[in-house]
């Protein structure tokens, strides 16, 4: 029996609110031509100036680049269908099941995203909003 002043704490699953349809989804930072995208999302890191001058160094740089990238891609592959915890800005932590990343590592596709306002079945997470994420192997 509840006494006056006591509250009952229950975790109630909440379906995610459907907010009114916003502006064109492409212009919320996903559109490659939007100023926000261009400012925040450099799609790739170019070769260094020193390497442009020296072909041998360029070859070494490209070799290093491909070794590093292959290793990273294997890491992404191993995350498929695993539970991942994302650490966002403002100490927000989100748990989700990892699906895939796009080629420039700008967006992650996830399922069962646990947000503070409910569980979203499918979602895209903007990598610019993520500080780090973690998972177990």
């Amino acid at each position: 029996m509840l006494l006056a002043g006591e509250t009952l704490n229950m975790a109630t699953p909440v379906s995610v609110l459907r907010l009114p349809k916003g502006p064109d989804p492409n212009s919320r930072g996903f559109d490659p031509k939007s100023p926000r995208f261009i400012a925040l999302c450099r799609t790739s890191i170019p070769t260094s100036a020193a390497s442009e001058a020296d072909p041998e160094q360029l070859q070494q740089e490209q070799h290093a680049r491909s070794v590093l990238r292959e290793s990273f891609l294997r890491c992404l592959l191993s995350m498929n269908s695993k539970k991942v915890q994302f650490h966002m800005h403002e100490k927000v932590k989100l748990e989700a099941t990892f699906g895939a990343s796009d080629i420039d590592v700008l967006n992650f596709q996830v399922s069962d995203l646990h947000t503070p306002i409910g569980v979203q079945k499918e979602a895209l997470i903007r990598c610019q909003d993520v500080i780090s994420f973690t998972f177990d192997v």
Partner: protein
Amino acid sequence: MMQCGWPLLGPLQWIRYVNRQVMVKAGNDEEHRGWLLTVDPVSASLVLVTFREEGRASVQVVMGHAVEEVQVLQEADEETTRRLQTSFLPARTCGLDPEELRRRRAGVQRWLEKNRVPVEEEGDQLRVAGVLTLAAPYGPEDCCSSNQIILDRIQKLIQSLVQSPYYPD
């Protein structure tokens, strides 16, 4: 947000941090430690591994854009380097013998042909419609293609074969 020079270092510098234990400061207040497995050259993100008991490990990926500081703590010994390098190799090893694989490949090929899908044998893989590769053990997860529509169609076809009562196992 102040960005430090980490994303600008480049592959030749990043690769020098691999197989070292590093401490990474990120965001405003996050600090991570772990063995550096790799740095993604596209996003400058660091992949840190922390070994746990019984061959398990936890992995932290710190996004390149959020990195404030990276410090090397120590070098990995041989054993740790070996563990790091083998932690993400394809986990699924094909447990079937060559004869069984050959039978399965033939079965999948017949099924695709029956569904009027052009398919050719290419070594131990199947080449489908010239745009999709199917490797052992020829399940829906083993399809590889850059054409999303064909990938989806063929995966569904193979899924229906795998689920049928006639599929040899």
